[in-house]
């Protein structure tokens, strides 16, 4: 029982990181109808920026600065490579983001070098005792940060002018334009949000074990999360992220005893298995809206 609860908390911690990444994907998708495959590079870029800045400014300030920095980079990329493609097939734009991801990652890898870089977080791998459970502090920090950010984001979309503009543009771009919403600003904002969220998620991924040149793969686990939750649902992204995190953690804890024939490290691919299973039952995810098909 104790092991199960500990595994659950680890899953929720990791899941909240996936949720942050998934939110970035969904925000971009809702604004531009494109899945931005550039998220892994933003995530790793944020983590690396923190690892450099933390030595100067301390961890927390570094995280904020890194999020702003990556958001600015994302904004620039959107303006240069994505905006000219408005109106082109979404597949083409998605592949462009794939190209951007490759380029940005190589640049970031140059800053990582061959070793593991520590992000200078205050938690490390240290544990805290809660009701008899030994829980790593960083899982709790991830959960708290994700809860705070998700709350802020939902408040932003609900109560601010720009949040309303983004919801309007997501609903119907042309009508939003006719009402005076600057759809270009919405595109730019969505990319900046996605970049900033990815940077923070990356920082949390880097807590404890640090970042190396292969850490970016973790960002791709947010893809099953958004598919499970539904591509166009913010709540679905959070739920999907948590589901993927928890399932992965449980599999990691129990698969070697229950189903050893699945091989070592099966936990790494469980998000994709979960995704396939959900898609077989619900092709538009748990909370996604069914696409209306018209000729």
């Amino acid at each position, binding site marked *: 029982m104790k092991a199960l609860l500990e595994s659950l908390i680890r899953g929720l911690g990791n899941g909240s990181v996936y949720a942050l990444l998934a939110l970035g994907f969904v925000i971009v998708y809702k604004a531009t109808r494109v899945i931005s495959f550039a998220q892994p590079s933003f995530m790793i870029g944020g983590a690396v920026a923190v690892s450099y800045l933390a030595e100067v400014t301390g961890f927390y300030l570094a995280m904020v600065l890194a999020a702003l920095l990556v958001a600015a980079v994302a904004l620039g990329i959107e303006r240069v490579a994505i905006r000219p493609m408005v109106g082109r097939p979404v597949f083409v734009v*998605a592949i462009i983001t794939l190209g*951007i991801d490759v380029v940005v990652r190589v*640049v970031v*890898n140059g800053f990582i070098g061959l070793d593991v870089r520590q992000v200078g977080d205050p938690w490390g791998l240290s544990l805290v005792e809660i009701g008899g459970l030994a829980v790593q502090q960083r899982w709790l920090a991830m959960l708290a940060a994700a809860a705070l950010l998700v709350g802020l984001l939902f408040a932003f979309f609900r109560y601010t002018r720009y949040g309303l503009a983004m919801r309007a543009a997501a609903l119907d771009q042309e009508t939003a334009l006719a009402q005076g919403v600057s759809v270009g600003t919405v595109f730019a904002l969505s990319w900046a949000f996605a970049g900033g969220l990815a940077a923070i998620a990356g920082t949390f991924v880097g807590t404890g074990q640090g970042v190396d040149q292969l850490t970016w793969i973790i960002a791709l686990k947010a893809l099953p999360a958004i598919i499970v939750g539904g*591509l166009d649902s913010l709540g679905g992204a959070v739920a999907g992220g948590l589901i993927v995190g928890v399932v992965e953690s449980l599999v990691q804890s129990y698969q070697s005893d229950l189903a050893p024939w699945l091989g070592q490290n099966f936990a790494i691919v469980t998000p994709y298995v979960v995704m396939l299973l959900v898609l077989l039952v619900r092709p538009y995810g748990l909370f996604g809206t069914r696409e209306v098909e*018209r000729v």
Partner: protein
Amino acid sequence: MSTGAPPETARPEAAGRPAAARRRARRPGGRPLLYTSYAQDMALLDTRAKKIWFYGIVLAALLASQVLVDDMLSLLAMAYVVAIGAIGLNIVTGYAGQVSLGHAFFLAIGAYTGAAISGDPDGRVLGLGVTSILVWLPAAGLAAALAGVIVAPLATRLRGLYLAIVTLGLVFLGEHIFKEWDQLTGGPGVGRPAAVVELFGLRLDRPGPLGSKEQQLYLLMLVLLVVFAVAARNLARSRIGRGFAAIRDRDIAAEVIGVPLTRYKLLAFAISSFYAGCAGALLYTVTGFFDPGSFNLLMSVQFIAMVLIGGVATISGSIAGALFITLLPRLTRELPALVPVISADTTQTPNVFQVETVLYGLLIVLFLVFEPRGLFGVWIRVRNYWKSWPFSY
């Protein structure tokens, strides 16, 4: 192209005539775009220029086996195999419009089927000892096609980016399976020998009557590429090819005009996977050894890059793209001599491998932004310029 062709219904007797008589329907001299029969309009090489180019390039490629050094030949042989795979991806993504990021998975299935069938039965890894290429190549293709058929039901339920992500998941699942199944694959970091190339009792991976090992493999790959490319071109102009195009342009509209959606998507995946499987089985015969870690997302992205850089829904474009991407590392390796900032040492920071990866990414972005039709589009522009020369309109 078909501007000068009279509609077929206008000459009903043309359809019934035997092939020999139809071939006699020659076009008048100096009128390269005037078609006088349906067969001419549908011909694969429908203009004289195409005919000359096609036979010229094939001839040049054949001669190259005698002229180029072995090192270059093995690189080109590799590029030809990769081109087969790129044509496969172009069938499903370019012609049928189903975005697949899972191409590496199908290549892996082909590679392991081929290697397992032809492998040494007493070796460290699984092998059946049937070394004839006539057996293992179709088997590899069929095994991959079967996997494609299994995946296809997902494709019929999903559209666009959902499908892209699912196929991406496939690559990760495949990578896991192949890393764990070390009886078949040798395990990560160890790998296993590739398929043994034997044709009618002749081992092509050893020096033989056709020349050195590289020359023989080069010729084999060239022949196979021509066969596969012509077959794909033929498919594209058939009823099935038109069905694919209709699905790509608007799948519901295609269904309304009578294209059976499920069956055609299934077919697209099966054919594409067949190509991928054959390419996978052949790919490592040149180097002789392969590792389960090679079938990763980067490989899928490279294939996507080939299709996009070469030209979506063109066979010649796929081949050009494959040659381009495969020869790119060779070009970047020359860079340190020209640009002293770039180092050939992998531990230094602007090194050739980084430059190469950045180039993949940048080329994808630049081609999509500035020349969406890819290298094929560049060729069309050059051709049209000279066709209308000295007029620029």
